[in-house]
């Protein structure tokens, strides 16, 4: 069971070029996944501030949501983001960033996912993402 999850996660992380571009990894404990984004200079959004680009933090959380959906459900096709709302609480500094996704509802067609990203302390999150994702196998076009 959890081996299949780990395999699905590894396959997803390996298969997506943009995940490699970000340098994103993930660890699995049972059905709980923590996504990991090590700091890298090329991810910085403003050299004078040294903070991760807001877009990178958003993208990382979006990928975390997709990865969480992928391990939850075996399917041929990748879910697609329908809409996402990203809230930024603090700058993401030169540390490793972590994220966890919580699938609040997974229906036949659409999943609602909340993601939280933090760095040194989980109680001091850097950003949140809420989004709807279109699940595969149901689309008409």
């Amino acid at each position, binding site marked *: 069971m959890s081996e299949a999850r780990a395999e699905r996660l590894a396959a997803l992380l390996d298969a997506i070029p943009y995940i490699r571009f970000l340098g994103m990894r993930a660890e699995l404990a049972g059905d709980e996944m923590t996504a990991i984004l090590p700091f890298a200079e*090329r991810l910085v959004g403003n050299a004078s501030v040294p903070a991760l680009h807001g877009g990178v933090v958003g993208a990382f959380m979006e990928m975390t949501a997709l990865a969480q959906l992928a391990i939850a459900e075996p399917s041929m096709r990748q879910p697609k983001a329908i*809409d*996402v709302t990203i809230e930024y609480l603090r700058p993401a500094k030169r540390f490793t960033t972590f994220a966890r996704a919580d699938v609040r509802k997974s229906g036949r067609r659409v999943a609602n996912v909340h993601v939280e990203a933090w760095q040194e302390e989980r109680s001091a999150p850097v950003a949140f993402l809420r989004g709807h994702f279109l699940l595969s196998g149901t689309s008409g076009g």
Partner: protein
Amino acid sequence: MAAMTTTAPVFDEAKALEAVAMMMQAPQIAALGFQFLGVEPSVGRMKAPYRDDLVGDPATGVIAGGVVTTLLDHTCALAIKAAAPGSGPSATLDLRIDYMRPARPYRDIIARAHCYHLAHTVAFLRATAYEDDPADPVATAQGVFVFSGPPATGGGA
């Protein structure tokens, strides 16, 4: 309060372009290969050239949504410079993105952002990402950003 600045500010394109040039040097923007397209009053435009290493769905060759997120976010920040060329760095408070359809594989994506309201330290933006036609968008975004005043004018920032 000195009631003096009731006239519409003149768009200082040279100043905006200078601010934008700095922004295009951001390491992540260089890493993604984004290209600056232009500024008009309160509007910025930028392009994300198609690249294999930015693909999010290898089955279709479609660029990752995250690339579009960064493109929209950065173009919004660009539009703030176009609205307030002397302003300091901006930070995203929130960004809502609607993905209308997958981007077309092997095509560059253009983003256009409009800063439709500028308050004292908060900017309100709308942005669209598309390949050819803004009326046929890949994604639209609505964002709120905070920004600091001109770096040289003293004050808290």
